[in-house]
């Protein structure tokens, strides 16, 4: 199961809720304002580390670029829209809104 999260973790509990239900091993893809979660040096850095112990974490590069986020937490994989599609090829999708 691929989980997508499109909300900033600062204003919204979506990422936190998603990880509570994601089964270990399920990939989580951050898109739109969701990508702010992996901006290096913000207050979610340790939460991201914790997630990575259980779930692979991806962030959509076009959304990172659009937001000027060039340095992200280590261990997070960036993908473009085609990489997003690849993840969808491999998994059913649970889009957290």
């Amino acid at each position, binding site marked *: *199961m691929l989980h997508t999260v499109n909300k900033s973790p600062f204003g919204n*509990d979506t990422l936190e*809720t998603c990880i*509570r*239900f*994601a*089964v270990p091993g*399920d990939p989580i893809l951050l898109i739109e304002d969701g990508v702010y979660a992996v901006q290096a040096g913000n207050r979610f850095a340790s939460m991201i580390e914790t997630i990575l112990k259980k779930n692979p974490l991806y962030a959509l590069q076009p959304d990172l670029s659009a937001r000027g986020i060039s340095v992200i937490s280590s261990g997070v994989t960036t993908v473009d829209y085609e990489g997003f599609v690849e993840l969808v090829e491999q998994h*059913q*999708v*649970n*889009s*957290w*809104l």
Partner: protein
Amino acid sequence: MDSVQDIKIKKIMHVLRHAPHGTIYTYEGLEMILIMATYDQDISVVFIGDGVYSLKKGQETSSIGIKGFARTFSALDGYDVEKLYVDQLSLEERGLTKDDLVVDVEVLSSENIGMLMKEQDVIIQH
């Protein structure tokens, strides 16, 4: 063989995660569930976070001028939508119990709901 393929029943889960009335997502989610229920699919509905508030007893919406719909959840049973799951932590954080809800639901841990999600062919978040 094609006919077997045609009638393959899919596991479809609807996730209701928003409070009622402030936004339309839960109400239009319910409208969608009622229509899908008339097709032969394996439907479940999961209430997470503020979604559990949509089942709260005693909602009287006349003074805000919006149509209430809590009672419609009781009608799901008549459509053979019997798999209603509520996230235990979401209930607890709100100081609610099953008795506060308009329908009979199964209360599950996040972990169990997560495993149910994993089994689905389709998940629709509202």
